[in-house]
């Protein structure tokens, strides 16, 4: 429905653009379509094609190194109704900029397919019914300033395509893109040394999803309302820094950042707020998790069967449960701030002299019998956890927690004041209660 309305609005806007741009001469879409593929085929490598405003019918294949630009950004639309990719790029050195690509059919082939290296895509707007941009064996490409949205109605998240999907494409740069309502926002598989910076991914399954990658840099991205912000699996030497992942809490498998089978990875300076689990680490070794602000999650950090990781200088604040850990005793937890922990600092070095041990009781209980997850943070459960103190030396322990929260460069979300509504409601309740007491005390009814 919404897709339909959007399409209709898009069409009207485009028609308006068409009239404005071309003045009295009007060209129909069909004419433009033939013209476009012909235009591209006629061009020599290195040529620049400036497209006049209008709707061009796809599919379009670029098989030589040309530059294809909209004369004015946002006025040129490539409309594809076929089952083929709307735009197929088969030559290196191609630059496509400023186009709107409307490709809303639900199909197998992606909206933009890149199969050669060194291709640049800039400032595109893609409405897709499959994958937005797919790169196959395309090294050193770049996608920047591009918006990718899901364009088809009534498709379950599991059946949607990815926003940007890389396979065996190394050293690709993905900068400043906005991706909404797709399956995985950015999916990287077997693609090393990729740079993912300044992207914003919303309402998708995973924000950034890495599988079998090395040397990936994930920096300054924002994830909002996805199932998981950054899903980092089977990787090595990845850097995840100064990202913001918020409100990934709707799904029973939601996390802010997930590390699974990740090694020698740096997770630093991220803001992880309001997720189901802030930071989930499983079967991962040799990672450094530093200076992250992990706030208002249901669980701050979860360590499962992970060892030799260094977790330091993080700030855990306002989480329902700070931490859960199982079979993860050999990590170096040191100097984090846990707001529920009251330390003792006799020597005044700002670090507690007693450690903060993470009680493994609930985690091991629900690991064996997930049904008991119902007791999460119930008063009786906390009582029971307090009683369970056996084998304390094998618990995951922060040896010297910080006494005061560290100052972290943090992205501050929409965290307003309590507002007058609560205050007025409080006043009303207080007044009502007071009046009730006075009434019954004074008058004899």
């Amino acid at each position, binding site marked *: 429905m919404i897709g339909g309305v959007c399409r209709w609005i898009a069409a009207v806007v485009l028609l308006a653009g068409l009239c404005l741009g071309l003045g009295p001469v009007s060209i129909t879409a069909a004419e433009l379509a033939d013209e476009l593929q012909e235009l591209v085929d006629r061009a020599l490598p290195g040529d620049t094609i400036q497209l006049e405003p209008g709707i061009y019918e796809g599919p379009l294949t670029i098989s030589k190194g040309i530059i294809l630009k909209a004369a004015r950004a946002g006025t040129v639309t490539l409309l594809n109704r076929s089952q083929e990719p709307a735009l197929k790029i088969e030559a290196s050195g191609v630059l496509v900029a400023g186009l709107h690509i409307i490709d809303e059919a639900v199909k197998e082939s992606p909206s933009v397919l890149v199969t050669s290296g060194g291709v640049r895509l800039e400032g595109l707007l893609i409405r897709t019914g499959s994958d937005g941009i797919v790169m196959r064996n395309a090294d050193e490409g770049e996608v920047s300033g591009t918006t990718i949205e899901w364009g088809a109605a009534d498709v379950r998240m599991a059946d949607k395509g990815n926003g940007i999907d890389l396979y065996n494409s190394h050293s690709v740069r993905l900068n400043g893109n906005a991706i909404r309502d797709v399956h995985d926002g950015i999916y990287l598989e077997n693609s090393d040394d990729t740079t993912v910076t300044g992207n914003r991914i919303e309402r998708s399954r995973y924000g950034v999803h890495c599988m079998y990658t090395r040397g990936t840099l994930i920096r300054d991205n924002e994830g909002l309302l996805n199932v998981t912000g950054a899903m980092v699996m089977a990787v090595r030497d990845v850097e995840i820094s100064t990202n913001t992942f918020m409100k990934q809490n709707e799904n029973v498998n939601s996390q802010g950042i997930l590390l699974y089978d990740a090694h020698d990875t740096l997770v630093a300076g991220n803001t992880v707020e309001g997720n*189901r689990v802030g930071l989930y680490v499983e079967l991962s070794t040799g990672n450094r998790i530093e200076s992250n602000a992990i706030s208002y999650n249901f669980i701050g950090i979860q360590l499962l069967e992970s060892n030799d990781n260094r977790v330091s200088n993080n700030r855990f604040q*306002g989480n329902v449960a700070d931490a859960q850990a199982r079979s993860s005793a050999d990590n170096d937890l040191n100097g984090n701030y846990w707001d529920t922990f009251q330390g003792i600092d006799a020597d005044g070095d700002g670090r507690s002299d007693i450690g903060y041990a993470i009680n493994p009781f609930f985690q091991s209980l629900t690991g064996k019998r997930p*049904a008991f997850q*119902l007791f999460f943070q119930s008063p*009786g459960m906390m009582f029971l956890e307090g009683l369970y103190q056996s084998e304390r030396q094998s618990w995951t322990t922060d040896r010297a927690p910080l006494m005061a929260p560290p100052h972290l460069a943090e992205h501050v979300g929409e965290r*307003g004041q*309590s507002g007058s509504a609560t205050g007025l409601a409080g006043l009303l309740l207080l007044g009502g209660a007071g009046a009730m007491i006075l009434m*019954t005390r004074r008058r004899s009814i």
Partner: protein
Amino acid sequence: MSSSFHVAVREVKIGFRNPWAYSFMALFALFMLSLLLINAQGYATGYSGVTGTMLNLVLYLLPLMTLTLGSFSLTGDKEDGNWELLSTYPLGTWAFLLGKYIGLAVVLLVIVALGFGLTGLAGWIAGGGFDFPTYAKLLAFSVCLALLFLAVSMVAGALSRNRWQALTVAVAVWFFTIIAWPPVLIASLGMMPYLWIKPVLTALTFLNPAELTRLFTVVKLGGGSMLGPEYYDWILWIRKPSGTPAFLLVAALWTSIALGIAHMLWERGRRRV
């Protein structure tokens, strides 16, 4: 109905003369304010550390308060001879118990309102506190909890001969439903076949007003995903707008059954006298 009203009015009047009501009121207000102070910097919205702690502390205090106030009121009438006096009037047990319930509910709700009113106002003035939807949900949680446990306290009061017995029963009920619930269930369900655990646990949760209300509130605060994939259908169901009336229906059913049992016990006592 009018006799119920008279009993209720009398109950409210006695309630606000009762020093217990005021000490509980002071305790509740103090504890709500200290909770606000603990989280002075924190801003509470949805299911977070602050609201989680708040839920738990309310669960510790409010049911115990309700159980003692309610059961003491009933046994007090037995002990002080009020009930014998009232028995000489044309007053049915139903009217009496219903009046008692309504009157005590008013007293409890005033206590809760005072505590929440103070927190809301203080939070607003201090520039922290709760955002309104969270505040409203926590208030609704406390009200539901108080009303459900008040029904239980009627049973406890009808069951007991005097205040001492009532205190024992009240504390026992409180301990079992709040503290001992997970340990007892984990121990007993742990011996059952794996596949039985979830259905039995779900069914038993309906028997414990504290758990029922807590889980409903956690889900409504947006923390449902925390309960894991096992309860996905339940979470979806509660989160729908129709989840609220359904919960209210369950709560009403709960209250009526508890009052019915109280009525039965009271009638038995009446015949015995």
